[in-house]
């Protein structure tokens, strides 16, 4: 492992340690203050809400909370794939992987300070602006604050040990520190998820809202689905930001070696992002199922009522993600000698993605002019209205996932020629599996129109399992089929047009916007409740704003986030300018 420590980094380490510690002190003092107010502060008790100037309390907390979540997602996700990449480097002995893992980790140092600062600010604002809610949540969750603080402290210790210990510990010791870092990070997110999921699906309390069972309050209906959904989404988001960093450095590179290195980094980051994206809809199904299991009313508000149009926006976002991810893979095939033979399939893949995208984004009820509404006989289009229901949308999403997987498969095969005797049979079997999966998924989708709702909802499970199984089986066949494959030509890393790197930025921005949108709906679905069914929101902001207003706030948040990210990229770039290109050349 390379020893890349610089004196300036030591100074930032002090800053990095200082901010989290400041956060811990602040959080602890606020918790104590809240408890004190709850026990004896008659004056504080009377204050339920305070007003934040100009933009109001809700928008102020909304923006800070979302920024904190975005940075938190990045800081918790990067160590996961950095550890895996480092492990690959350790097992294969390829120094490039070690260097790449280190470069990913380098992004964490400053990001961790940003996350902690935003966390402190969020805590501060919540206790000041929403004392009634925070007093109540403190009553329920006060005992979880202590392990949270301890884990946060350990996170700082392991993170900086992992980063500054690069090349100084035995590789296995270093990997174990990375593992500890990840376990602690998962612990942190699980505790924080308990607080926020309790607000949506509270459990473990009596009818008056008093705590009866802390574990039930933590292990509420959507706690584990949110945990899993967030872990996967964090990896996806973190991968996309890391890929954007690679793209930024690629575009700013002045030598072919640097371009090659950062092209590779962008590719790996994007690979991680898209790999995690594929199972994300399935985690989303589970989350949705648990919401319905807790309260059909809440489920209907989410999917069929107030927020139904939000999911059309989400369809546009996710559709764009898939489109951009596929586009990047297709452009990437240009740098692979031998991949030309697969170009002819791209038009079919594009047609499939476009079709699925259109179906997914078709609303059930249309916004129509007077003449259109009269011609249609209502708000449902006689033909397109059929596509605006879950049977069609689930089918479209599953085929979209399969199409993206095929794009990746073609990319992976780009410069490889199988040498096994059963290659033709293997290809036929793979084709048959794909064909069966597509036909079966479509069949279930069509069948869904002819059965009751309770049966129809369950059909998404075999659809999902079919797609997952297809990807697993086809991958296994592919791995064995291309073992000892003949290499038709090298991958010319760095020989990529600039537009491919903008595709990576597009993916990162879209991920950030999607996070903002889903963060909004996760919180907004409670409507006029702070804690659903338990504590009403009686503030002036108790109403649910329009989706256009939410879109404005999300865009502002995303732009602030990327402004901060630009600072992080710049700071991180200062330390890696001299080393990366030379190392790529030396180890490639």
């Amino acid at each position, binding site marked *: 492992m390379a020893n890349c420590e610089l004196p300036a980094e030591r100074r930032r380490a002090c800053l990095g340690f200082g901010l989290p510690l400041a956060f811990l002190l602040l959080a602890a003092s606020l918790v104590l203050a809240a408890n004190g107010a709850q026990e004896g502060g008659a004056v504080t008790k009377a204050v339920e809400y305070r007003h934040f100037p100009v933009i109001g309390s809700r928008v102020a907390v909304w923006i800070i909370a979302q920024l904190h979540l975005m940075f938190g997602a990045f800081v918790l996700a990067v160590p996961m794939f950095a550890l895996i990449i480092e492990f690959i480097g350790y097992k294969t002995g390829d120094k490039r992987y070690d260097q790449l893992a280190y470069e990913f980790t380098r992004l964490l140092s400053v990001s961790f300070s940003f996350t902690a600062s935003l966390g402190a600010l969020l805590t501060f604002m919540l206790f000041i602006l929403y004392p009634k809610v925070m007093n109540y949540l403190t009553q329920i969750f006060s005992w979880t604050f202590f392990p949270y603080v301890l884990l946060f402290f350990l996170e700082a210790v392991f993170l900086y040990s992992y980063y500054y210990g690069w090349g100084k510990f035995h590789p296995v010791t270093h990997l174990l520190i990375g593992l500890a870092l990840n376990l602690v990070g998962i612990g942190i997110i699980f505790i924080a998820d308990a607080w926020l999921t309790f607000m949506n699906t509270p459990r473990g309390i009596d009818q008056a809202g008093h705590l009866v069972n802390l574990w039930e309050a933590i292990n509420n209906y959507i706690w584990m689905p949110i945990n899993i959904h967030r872990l996967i989404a964090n990896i996806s988001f973190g991968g996309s930001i890391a890929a954007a960093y690679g793209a930024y450095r690629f575009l700013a590179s002045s030598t072919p070696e640097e371009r090659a290195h950062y092209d590779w980094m962008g590719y790996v980051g994007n690979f991680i992002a898209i790999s995690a994206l594929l199972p994300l809809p399935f985690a989303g199904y589970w989350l949705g199922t648990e919401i319905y299991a807790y*309260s059909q009313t809440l489920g209907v508000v989410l999917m069929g009522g107030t927020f139904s149009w939000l999911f059309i926006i989400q369809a546009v976002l996710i559709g764009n993600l898939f489109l951009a991810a596929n586009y990047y893979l297709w452009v990437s095939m240009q740098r692979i000698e031998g991949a030309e033979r697969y170009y002819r399939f791209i038009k079919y893949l594009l047609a499939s993605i476009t079709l699925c995208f259109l179906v997914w984004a078709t609303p059930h009820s249309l916004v129509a002019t007077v003449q259109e509404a009269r011609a249609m006989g209502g708000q449902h289009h006689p033909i397109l209205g059929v596509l605006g229901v879950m049977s069609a949308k689930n089918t479209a999403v599953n085929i979209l996932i399969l199409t993206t997987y095929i794009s990746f498969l073609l990319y992976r095969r780009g410069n490889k020629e199988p040498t096994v005797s059963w290659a033709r049979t293997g290809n036929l079997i793979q084709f048959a599996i794909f064909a069966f999966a597509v036909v079966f998924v479509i069949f279930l989708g069509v069948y869904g129109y002819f059965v009751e*709702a309770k049966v129809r909802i369950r059909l998404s499970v075999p659809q999902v399992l079919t797609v997952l199984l297809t990807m697993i089986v086809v991958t296994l066949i592919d791995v064995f089929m291309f073992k000892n494959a003949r290499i038709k030509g090298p991958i010319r890393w760095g020989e990529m047009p600039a537009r491919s790197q903008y595709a990576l930025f597009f993916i990162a921005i879209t991920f950030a916007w999607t996070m903002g949108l889903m963060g909004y709906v996760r919180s907004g679905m409670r409507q006029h409740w702070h804690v659903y069914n338990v504590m009403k929101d009686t503030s002036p902001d108790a109403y649910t704003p329009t989706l256009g207003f939410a879109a404005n706030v999300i865009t502002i948040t995303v732009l602030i986030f990327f402004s901060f990210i630009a600072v992080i990229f710049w700071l991180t770039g200062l330390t890696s300018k001299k080393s990366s290109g030379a190392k790529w050349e030396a180890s490639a």
Partner: protein
Amino acid sequence: MRTTIKIFLFTVAVSLFYTYVGHMVPQKEFHPPMTIELRADLTPAELAEIGRQIVAGKGTCLTCHTIGADKPGRFPDLGGIGARAAHRKPGYSDVDYLAESLYRPNAYIVPGFAPGMPQVNKPPIGLTDQEILAVIAYLQSLGGTPTVTLKTKLKWAGETATQETAPAPAGGTEGAGGGPQALFTKYLCTTCHKLDAPGKLVGPSLYDVGSRLSKGEIYEAIMDPDATVAPGFPPGIMSATLKANKFYQKVTPAELKAMVDYLASLKGDK
């Protein structure tokens, strides 16, 4: 630096594109439901009218139920429930059955449907006992005749989680949540049409429009006023007024449906 600026502009452009998408979908604010104050001397018919507002508003009943639809939605269609209710469960009167359906919705599940309706007297809906009586009166009116008043005693009354209001003294009703009637004020329909009595203003009275026109004809009369003009009234005025008020841009499908349903329910003195 040039690369950084290009990336920044690209980020802004993509974000603005998604903002644009966010503004292209229907825009509506959702306000917390407010408790409807009820006079102590309301007649069953008046109570049914308030119940209709609760069903469409605070009760959120129409999120899952339909009224008079060809195909039921998530839960059973409520059209004609006033006539069916007395025969659903042996030994239950229509009021008993409807009350149980609201306080204990999963005690009896209509064949072909899954359980899942929440207790309406508990959060998040949290109707008061008086509001539930109003809903029962309205449900009775769907195919039957409302009989309940605020003096009617229900077996499950008193179990409400939030008794936010007591019956108010006589002096008018207020649907603070904004029922269909409020829409006619919002869109200035009542400037030209009477809703509660015969007699013409600029346009014909609508107090009996439900007995004269079908829902489809009412829908057409709103969406294309000049397609069929009532005898004795000049064409063009309503369409020009609605366009000038930007009614067609502002009205949501749900509002339009509520207005049509409401007008269809206006039967005059019948």
